């Protein structure tokens, strides 16, 4: 699992590559825990290469959800594979989080 951060103006894009499970969740958590994260207006998560997400991986996003909301930082997922989207959907996270098909839509959210 690889996490690449791409800062641009008021938007931070995190590109996820690989399987997000209990062991790689730590890497993502470190990235989301950085204090300067809250200075952005928007955090985009590029899920194109995210092939699997476990409950521990979901837990990382869930645990940061409130903090980002409180600081008015929008969390947007895009390019999500269907299998991964199903996991979000079953848990009901699709009604709670911004999940859009393309990067263009992600930028206009």
């Amino acid at each position, binding site marked *: 699992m690889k996490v690449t951060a791409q800062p641009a103006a008021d938007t931070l894009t995190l590109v996820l590559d690989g399987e997000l499970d209990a062991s790689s969740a730590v890497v993502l958590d470190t990235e989301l825990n950085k204090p300067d994260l809250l200075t952005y207006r928007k955090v985009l998560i590029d899920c194109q290469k995210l092939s699997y997400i476990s409950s521990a991986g*979901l837990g990382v996003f869930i645990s940061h959800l409130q903090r980002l909301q409180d600081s008015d930082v929008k969390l947007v997922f895009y390019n999500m594979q269907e299998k991964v989207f199903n996991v979000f959907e*079953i848990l*009901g996270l699709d009604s709670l989080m911004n999940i859009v098909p393309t990067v263009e839509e992600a930028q206009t959210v």
Partner: protein
Amino acid sequence: MPTISRSAWLLVAAAACWVVLLLGTLSQSHALANQADVWPRWVLLLAQAGFAAFVFMYARLQPEGLRGHNFVPLLRQVFWRSLLATGGLVAAMLVERLTAAHTLPLPGNVTSAVSYTVVLALFILLLSQTLYTWRSLVGFRGGRKLRREWVVFELTLGIALLLQLFIWNVPYTLRVVLITGLALFGVYLSGHQRWVAYLSQGQKVQAILLQIGVLTCLLLFLRYLTQAQTDPALLAPASQQAFLVLTSFFAVFYAIAGLLVSFFNLPTADVFEQRRNEILSLQQLTQIIQRGQTAPEIYQALFDSAVKTVQADAAWFDTRPQPTDPTGSQMMPLLHHLTPADVDKLRANLAGLLIDERLEVIDNDLGRSQRLAGLGYHFCSVVVLTLRSPSYDYGVMVLFKEELEGFDREDSSILNTFTSQTVLSLENLQLAHEARVNQRTQDELRIAALVQERLIPKKLPTDDWFEISTYAQAAKEVGGDFYDFLHLPGQKLAVLIGDVSGKGVTAAFHTAQMKGIFHALMQANPLAKNERNRYPDPHRFMVQANEALTHCLERSSFITAAFYLIDYQAGGFSFARAGHCHTLYYHSIKEEVSYFRTEGLGLGIIRDASYEKYVKTQFWDYNPGDVMVIYTDGIVEARDGEGNEYGEERLREMLSACFYQSAEEINTHIRQDVQQFSQGLPLHDDQTLLVIKFKSAQPQA
């Protein structure tokens, strides 16, 4: 170099004494002929004593001749020197004979005086060489006590030399006591023949021959000198006899003793004793280890054994606590004849040796390497041993001896045996400790598994209206899946299934909590205005459970759950899904298998009142023959060898193929299919599967 200049001065002084002695002897021989010009007797005595003293002191200052176990080269060196001296003796005798036969045109008394003086000088030189070679052999593997005894021996010899110089007429009894005492002392010292035991067969033969050679040379000299004493042509000074006789006696006696020991192949008792001590120490060490005592006890045993076995004069041992020691505190160094202040000083000076990568470093000549220069210790040899396993350094032991070449191959090998044995035992101790800790954890997990097992309902609800079959398997000892049933008055049945995110003990705790919440919330509300509100509906159940969990669930954890309230009198059920897997359903009238695709957010994701917007109650009327399959993601996410997931689709097809069977059979079919799919691979996640089959109200009818 002060030593060299001192030796040079001694040589010069000896030469000067010899010249005086020569002139004095000449004057005496002249006096014999001319009756005039006689030097006083005390000048001769002084010159002779001075010569002997300087030569012996010179020999004493020479560096230790014995290196390691090179006994034969040492003996060979003495032998060649003896031979050289004897060559001089033979030449002197030849000149004397020829002069006596008038073959050589020399004055007879002058010749014998000169040759006597030369032979005496050669003899004293030879004696000094032999004595100090014997010192190396006597001191070999001897301790500090023996070295002290040797110094006493030297001192008494010196006293014997001085006594005759200053007291002209030594009382007869004193002389006898002194000579006998010293002779006995010499005999005692001659008992130290430990080196012989270290000779191989071939070396022994060489040593015997070389000693015979040295002995012969010494005896030749003695024969000449005793004859010369009585030679009427020479009034030799009957001088330091006591000293020379004693020294020769010791030199000869030691050689004879060594010869006998070598010849009869008698390893001396000391060597036996030492070997026995080594074996005993090793046994002791092994026993302490086998009894599985603590690390400090093992360290102490090693230290004591090592010091005793190699007879170290001083030592210290820096130990580190075991890696598993919870306190991890630094331990005090173990000490032998050293104070903590000494250790600090020595440690600073030996830093180079202490950080060496090798397990064993020996410096057998600390004087030359100048490591302890200026500290005022008498240590000449040091060995540094590191106790190391591939993963850990247990400590460093430093042993000192006051003698040069103090640590030889035997010491090294026995010390290495000790340390490797100790490292082994320390590792064992550690493994045993880890095994105990591991065992305890295992035991506790087993208890946790038993406790969790008790939380799972053993008695399934039975009724004519439905059949229930269950299956649950945790991936680890304890799991994060749970389910429960509760019969409510009025032919109602509450069913709860859920999955705590994460695995292991933490997840297991939350399953117990969910069970508690379930039973607490499903208590009848006595204040309810009507029958419908007596028990919470699925939506209210989820909202209240979510609230209850808010305070105890870690922020990154969540729980998925599905709750069903079956009213089999009315033939319908209400349910709510909180992020849990979709329910699979067989509709007997439409003859169709499909999932209830409803919305609902997992518990613990939103932790405020807004959660109620994210969960809904759904209603469904069932018909006899309908089948409901409730499960956790461990079923649909089971993986095969290539990492493919079992999936909702395959589960749906399974039910399509076996919906007509009993709940038990359907359950078994699905379970077997999942197991077949995952090809016996270890479980990736906990699996739970509930099958409920509805039947008509009166199945008999």
